[in-house]
């Protein structure tokens, strides 16, 4: 896998810079609905993806993620509602939208008898790139996904992780502004996942808007700026990652370890500014201190503890696991 410094000089030709100042949101979904027979795959969904953002699209299996992606990438026509990609309606301007997006399906859709280079060359030609331009772009994208040494290998002989990289390279050949990736990390081993996430960070740095679906929220936690959570076709949350915990009404909580016992310490901690609740952890000299959202003053807490003459042994933020928030939001089950 290339490191970031190795990749840094590489720049995807020809027009990788997105003029975000003049752009509308990369994706605008309004009141989108889609059903298959009597089953609703997507129901009255509304959300935005900002241009240049790395946006996660999370939901359990069967939540409607793939259907939503297919609707955005013009493979399906919406039954109700509208979708705009960079301000263009996906139904009215289908071809223009297709030129600006790169879609990577959740399954390996590859021509296994082609070599890696032939595969990318074919897609480059299909997108109208001239031969010299294709040579340059293929070299760049192969360097980005670290597959340059395997360019003449048959796709059939590549491992799953390598095929996924080639698939990502295929998406990048046409230099799309918006990348729609449907569960790109599924089936990959931990190392391949980490490598994939590194590549996505690189792409974000190049100004691409990335819309990535997954059924594991924590997988995207460190990667995404914003997230949309979908369950049984309904949008449960759409916004920044940092506000997700606030949305679930969970109070910021810290763990405070003290050197020695102090009379009424639990009660006195509760009286400090902004503290909502104090709980002792398993009878040890350690407390879980929850703050009110409006007043999170950890300095005041630590000062107060020290003023009491209690030694602070440890003080860490107890981040509620994102999966718990995800579980809270998606507990609706099947409709």
């Amino acid at each position, binding site marked *: 896998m290339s490191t970031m410094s190795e990749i840094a000089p590489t720049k995807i030709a020809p027009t990788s810079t997105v003029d975000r100042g003049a752009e509308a949101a990369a994706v605008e979904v309004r009141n989108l609905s889609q059903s298959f027979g009597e089953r609703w795959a997507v129901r009255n969904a509304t959300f935005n993806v900002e241009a240049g953002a790395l946006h996660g699209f999370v939901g359990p299996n069967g939540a409607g993620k793939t259907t939503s992606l297919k609707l955005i990438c013009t*493979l399906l026509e919406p039954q109700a509602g509208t979708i705009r990609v960079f301000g263009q309606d996906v139904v009215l301007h289908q071809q223009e939208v297709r030129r600006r997006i790169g879609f990577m399906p959740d399954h390996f859709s*590859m021509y*296994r008898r082609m070599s890696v280079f032939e595969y990318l*060359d074919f*897609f480059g030609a*299909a997108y*109208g790139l001239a*031969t010299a331009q294709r040579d340059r772009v293929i070299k760049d994208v192969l360097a980005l996904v670290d597959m340059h040494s395997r360019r003449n290998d048959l796709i059939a002989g590549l491992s799953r992780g390598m095929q996924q990289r080639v698939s990502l390279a295929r998406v990048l050949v046409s230099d799309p502004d918006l990348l729609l990736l449907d569960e790109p990390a599924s089936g990959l081993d931990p190392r391949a996942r980490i490598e994939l996430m590194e590549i996505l960070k690189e792409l974000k740095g190049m100004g691409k808007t990335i819309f990535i679906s997954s059924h594991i929220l924590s997988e995207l936690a460190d990667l995404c700026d914003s997230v949309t959570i979908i369950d049984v076709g309904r949008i449960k949350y759409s916004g920044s990652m940092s506000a997700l915990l606030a949305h679930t009404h969970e109070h910021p909580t810290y763990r405070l370890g003290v050197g020695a016992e102090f009379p009424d310490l639990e009660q006195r901690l509760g009286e400090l500014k902004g503290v909502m609740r104090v709980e002792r952890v398993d009878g040890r000299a350690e407390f879980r201190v929850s703050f009110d959202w409006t007043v999170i003053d950890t300095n005041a807490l630590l000062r107060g503890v020290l003023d009491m003459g209690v030694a602070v042994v440890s003080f860490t933020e107890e981040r509620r696991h994102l999966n718990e928030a995800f579980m809270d939001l998606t507990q609706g089950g099947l409709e």
Partner: protein
Amino acid sequence: MFTGTLALLHRALRLDARLLRTHLFRVGFAGLVYASLIYTWGTSALLGAPGLKLFETMTYLNLVLISLAGISFFATAITEEKEEDTLGLLKLAGLNPLGILLGKSTSRLVGAILLLLVQFPFTLLAITLGGVTLLQVLAAYCSLAAYMVLLANVGLFFSIACRRGGAASASTLLFMILYFLAAPGLLTIRLGLVNGGVIVKSGVVDRFFEDSAELCRSGSIWNRIETITQTGFGESPIGTQVLFSLVIAGLFFLLAWVSFHHFTRDARGAAKPKADFSSRFIALGRKYRSRPRTRPLAWKEFHFVTGGMPVQIAKFVFYGMLAGLVFWASERYYGYTLAQAGQVVAIMMLVAITIESSMYASVIFHDEWRDRTLPLLTMMPIRPTTIITSKIAGCGPALVPALLWLGVGCVIWPQGLTELGNALILPSRWFVLLVALLFLTLTMFFSMVVRWGALPLAIAVMALGVIVSGCCGSPVFGMMAVVNRETGFQEGGFFLVDLVILTLIVGLQFDVRRRFEIASSQ
């Protein structure tokens, strides 16, 4: 062993019973039998022995359908497990090769025999219509059942030996061609060898050829049915053909059993194309393969579906050798003129073009659908119509070798060039071309609708079309006669029929486009 086998059989039968299309197929089949009955009743005033006519229609119809089932239904029994990577799971489940073979083939055989049994009472009606005896009906069904068992086991073997369903179907088809042409083929070779003085007439080799041909003839279902449908048939219902078929079927089953491990050692890898025959050709041509330019889709089809230049050169050489053999042997051993040999070559090349084009029609969309690459094509900024036409255009150059030898045949055959010219100006010749186009369009259409067997299905539908147009074509024929009489233009009637077929083709093409979009979004 039998627990697993029964579980497989049970699953297959349950699945079969749940599918609507199975029942629709059976209803359609019963409808076909009913249509044959009506046709026989309608023509009974003109033809004698209406019962015999019904019996013959039913028997030959069954023969065609069983043959189609052989190259589609039976030949994919194991390959579908290979393609879905589930053969390894069956092995892991503790099923031994015999269990898997019995479980997979028996369910299909039971389903097919049920179709044969369901029509038996209808066929008995032929006895009441007159001209047929119960013995003839029993003998025909015994022969057909034996033929079905033979094809089921031949298909089973090839589905073990081949990686892909298409290859298994093609191999089974090749077996069937050999099965039907063995007797006349051996006799033709014998005649040539005797005429050329290579072997002595009535000598050992000559007798060997004759005996072998006789064995193949008595083992052939075609000859058996011809014998059965003759008035005064009085042989045993279980004749040589039945025994021959069962013995060969048994041998193929044993072969499938013995070779099971050899061909399925790597059940997952079995579906990988990297080591198969066509891939070797593709790998051979990689060095000389051009890069995609203005028509990348056509480039892809030419190189990866038809095999590219190496395969075309190989085909050109093969067809050339075939034509050379015909030219050389016809004059030397059979006393044919060079012109007659040219006609034979032209006909052979027409058959080759039909087979090749139908094979391409059955795979160009189906392979994309199977490999789930259709969404990638649809996502390109290319209109679906352009995608479809580009794919078809990419297969066009693959017909050039056969076309070249067709040209050679036509140049040598004095009427050949006239016939080719007629194909351009006469509606009766357009009719042949349009029927071929309709068949190819139908094959493309089915390749995006069914998981396997698009080609046999298209053949079956075309055969059905022939029967229906034969039954209900009176108004069309009447109209053709009126047009011919009024205009004095003998081809006028054909022109009208051509227009009807052209409309059908255009309609189907629109549906192919619609299916393409549906398949892409799935």
